[in-house]
């Protein structure tokens, strides 16, 4: 194996149910504990059983932000994996496979090293169950990469401890058998690509987690009190994390009968004073649309995480997409101040989900955290958050009885004092247009001032809370890339190949950083919009808000992640681009 660019990629493939994901995640955790940053990419078709699963684990001493077209090492649990992925191995890379299976490796390039290891046999030696096969394969890879088998065995104790001593011991034995087999049989192939970085202190400052997990942890960090979430790909893991930790952290997670109930329950809980959220994918959001505006007009704080997949309807259930931006910005009748945030990686998902709760409370409105499936389900390393830094801002929140309380009192910033039932203050949270107390009112003047009051909150929010988008790369670049969501990772990777290209990463879609984008985009000689939807929804919003038309749009709609190589190829076609 060779390590050409300081990023090591290991691809693991096998039939659904063989633990491809758990092997990959353990490899990622061992790398993170050894001081490396990690980016995992997982693909699985929507088949019930017998589907082919594949996961790529990329690690480096630098930040890794994107998958790679080719891997250095392939761990193949079956022939299909070899057949489908042998051509995606770097020149000089290797394949780990079961030497006692009748593997057909005839098509594999001669430069690829073949690491035939009696995986099944060694697994049986460790214990009677074949589940140890994964462990043997992973420890073999660790042996080849120079990873630390003791770190692996400690991880086994932590992850499988609850399964009993016998299982843990058999797992650890399997780890030794695989590791030692490689050390004895492939002496000349051993590398130090995964050796523990000396300067790296313990406990590890890196976490390895998916965007779903980051969203759930962000919510818990923000003092979540209530969540009602109906399962749907790709966000179900948010509810799994929330369900498992509710008693410990004192919040309630409830699975409702449908998404309509999910959002209405969350609104009810929030009205009563609980920090509340729901989560769904595009199809579920369609059902929530009706109550989306209910939260808006009743000025009930609500966080909604929306994990995008390809649509319309059932669409591409297990693949990614970015086609829901216009939906969360416009669905439901009429206007209210809807805040929409679009994190671009796991770290941003954690931070912006936590931030969303403060924004929802401060502006007493809906906050959508819109992420794509690639963020939902791919693992990345994230800096261990500093728990003592966490602060909760509940805005104008009144828990005492006040004289002549007006729930929708007019104010300069548009934000009225919010009280809750049970503290003595009378008000109606009213889905009808209402006066300052909440009584239904269809009076002309009242309608105008209440509408204006609500919309003022968006202006206040833009002034007080919205940061400028981050710009990566040279400030005076000739070519500017505009994009959002998980495209960020591959764009940053691609940027390394050019000297005069920068990237504007948009994480606030409403309110929208109009002035900043106008300035940045009008300075560039050429602008490229990159999105995973058919029309270029962000590019159209840019035109609507700034008047600047981005004609050059690189759009991908097949549900697959954009690889850095595709972006490099695209940018190579732009006149005046300078390669490094």
């Amino acid at each position, binding site marked *: 194996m060779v390590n050409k660019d300081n990023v090591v990629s290991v691809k693991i493939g096998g039939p659904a149910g063989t633990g491809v994901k758990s092997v990959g995640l353990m490899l990622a*955790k061992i790398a*993170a*504990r050894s001081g490396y940053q990690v980016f995992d990419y997982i693909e699985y078709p929507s088949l019930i059983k017998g589907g082919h699963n594949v996961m790529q684990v990329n690690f480096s001493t630098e930040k890794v932000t994107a998958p790679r077209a080719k891997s250095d090492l392939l761990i193949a649990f079956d022939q299909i994996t070899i057949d489908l992925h042998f051509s995606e191995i770097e020149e000089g890379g290797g394949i780990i496979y079961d030497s006692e299976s009748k593997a057909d490796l005839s098509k594999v390039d001669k430069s690829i090293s073949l690491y035939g290891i009696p995986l099944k046999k060694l697994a049986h030696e460790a214990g009677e169950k074949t589940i140890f096969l994964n462990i043997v394969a992973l420890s073999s890879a660790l042996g080849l990469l120079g990873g630390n088998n003791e770190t692996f065995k400690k991880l086994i104790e932590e992850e499988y401890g609850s399964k009993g001593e016998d299982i843990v011991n058999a797992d650890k034995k399997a780890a030794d058998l695989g590791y030692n087999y490689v050390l004895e049989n492939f002496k000349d192939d051993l590398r130090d690509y995964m050796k523990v970085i000396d300067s790296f202190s313990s*406990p*590890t400052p890196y*976490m*390895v987690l998916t965007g779903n*997990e980051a969203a759930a*942890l962000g919510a*818990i*960090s923000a*003092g*979540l*009190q*209530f969540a*009602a979430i109906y399962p749907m790909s790709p966000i179900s893991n948010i509810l799994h994390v929330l369900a498992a*930790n509710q*008693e*410990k*952290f*004192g*919040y*309630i997670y409830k699975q*409702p*009968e449908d998404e*309509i*109930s*999910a959002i*209405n*329950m*969350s*609104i*009810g*809980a*929030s*009205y*009563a*004073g*609980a920090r*509340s959220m729901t989560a769904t994918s595009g199809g579920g959001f369609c059902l929530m649309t009706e*109550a989306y505006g*209910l939260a808006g007009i009743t000025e009930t704080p609500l966080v909604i995480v929306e994990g995008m997949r390809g649509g319309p309807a059932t669409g591409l259930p297990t693949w990614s997409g970015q086609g829901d931006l216009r939906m969360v910005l416009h669905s439901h009748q009429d206007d209210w101040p809807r805040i929409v945030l679009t994190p671009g990686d796991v770290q941003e998902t954690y931070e912006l989900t936590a931030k969303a709760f403060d924004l929802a409370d401060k502006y007493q409105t809906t906050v959508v955290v819109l992420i794509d499936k690639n963020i939902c389900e791919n693992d990345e390393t994230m800096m*261990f*958050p500093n*728990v003592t830094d*966490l602060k909760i801002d509940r805005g104008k929140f009144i828990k005492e009885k006040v004289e002549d309380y007006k729930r929708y009192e007019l104010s300069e910033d548009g934000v009225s004092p919010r009280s*809750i*039932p*049970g503290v*003595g*203050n*009378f*008000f*109606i*949270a*009213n*889905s*009808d247009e209402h006066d300052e107390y909440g*009584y*239904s009112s269809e009076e002309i003047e009242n309608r105008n001032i209440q509408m204006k009051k609500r919309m003022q909150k968006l202006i206040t929010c833009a002034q007080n809370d919205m940061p400028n988008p981050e710009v990566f790369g040279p400030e005076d670049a000739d070519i500017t890339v505009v994009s959002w969501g998980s495209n960020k990772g591959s764009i940053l990777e691609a940027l390394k190949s050019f000297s005069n290209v920068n990237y504007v990463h948009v994480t606030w879609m409403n309110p929208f950083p109009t002035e900043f984008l106008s300035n940045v985009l009008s300075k560039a000689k050429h602008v490229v919009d990159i999105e995973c939807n058919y029309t270029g929804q962000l590019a159209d919003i840019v035109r609507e808000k700034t008047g600047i038309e981005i004609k050059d749009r690189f759009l991908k709609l097949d549900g697959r992640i954009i690889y850095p190589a595709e972006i490099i190829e695209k940018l190579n076609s732009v006149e005046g681009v300078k390669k490094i």
Partner: protein
Amino acid sequence: MTQEELKTPFTPNWCPGCGNLNIWAAFKNAAVQEGWDNTNTALVAGIGCHGHILNFVKLTSFEGLHGRALPVASGIKMANNRLNVFAHVGDGDCLGEGGNHFVHSARRNHDITVLLHDNTLYALTTGQTSPATERGMKTKSTPAGNPDDPVYPLAWAIASGATFVARAYSGHMDKLMNLIIEANNHKGFALIDILQPCVTFNKVCTHAMYQQNTYYLGDDYDPTNKKEAFMKAYEFGEKKIPLGIFYREEKPTLEEGYVQIAEKPLIDNEPKLEGLTDLFKKYT
């Protein structure tokens, strides 16, 4: 609160003779008698003529969407189980648009009281058929007569797992008041199907019809017998419209199952952020 304190600046806009007026009065009487006020009570309503009630009772409330009152009420109860939570709903509202929520809220046994303002048609939209409209009745949407059988809300509630199921007639205000109090005292999902004439659009289910054909379940009726209750819930016809408590069952409420709120309401739980470091470590 006194009757005076329950008053809002608005006078009810229901039609003269509307059953909603009786329900409104009975509810306020119950509130005065039981001390329901803005320190202990929250009301929710759906959309329909019934929903206007929130503007005429000075108790803190949430006016939701057509059919969606029950999930809002459930959310309030989970967030603050100290509150008496009442959901005022309509028959079109709760049994049509909100049918799924009705079934599942009952099944989960949330500790809420559902007051079904049942005028057997859509009145606010000027008289179309509702899921509770009897077969054959002529309405604006069924000029040749309703071709569908009606739902039996009580049977539906019992089958779904509701633990307090009763029927009242709006004209009998004292009995209705007592039933509302009893339903609120019940721990669990309580439904009162309140027969209330729509004097403007419903020429079949009138005050006279209810007065002539309703009767009260007697002492010999056992409301803990689910099978009997289910049979009774389908009884509806000439001289055969039972009123009273059809079914009641003592069963843990959903809210009682949460250790998170065993000591104090959810909204009074301080965030337990000290456990975060251990949780984060699971992802290393």
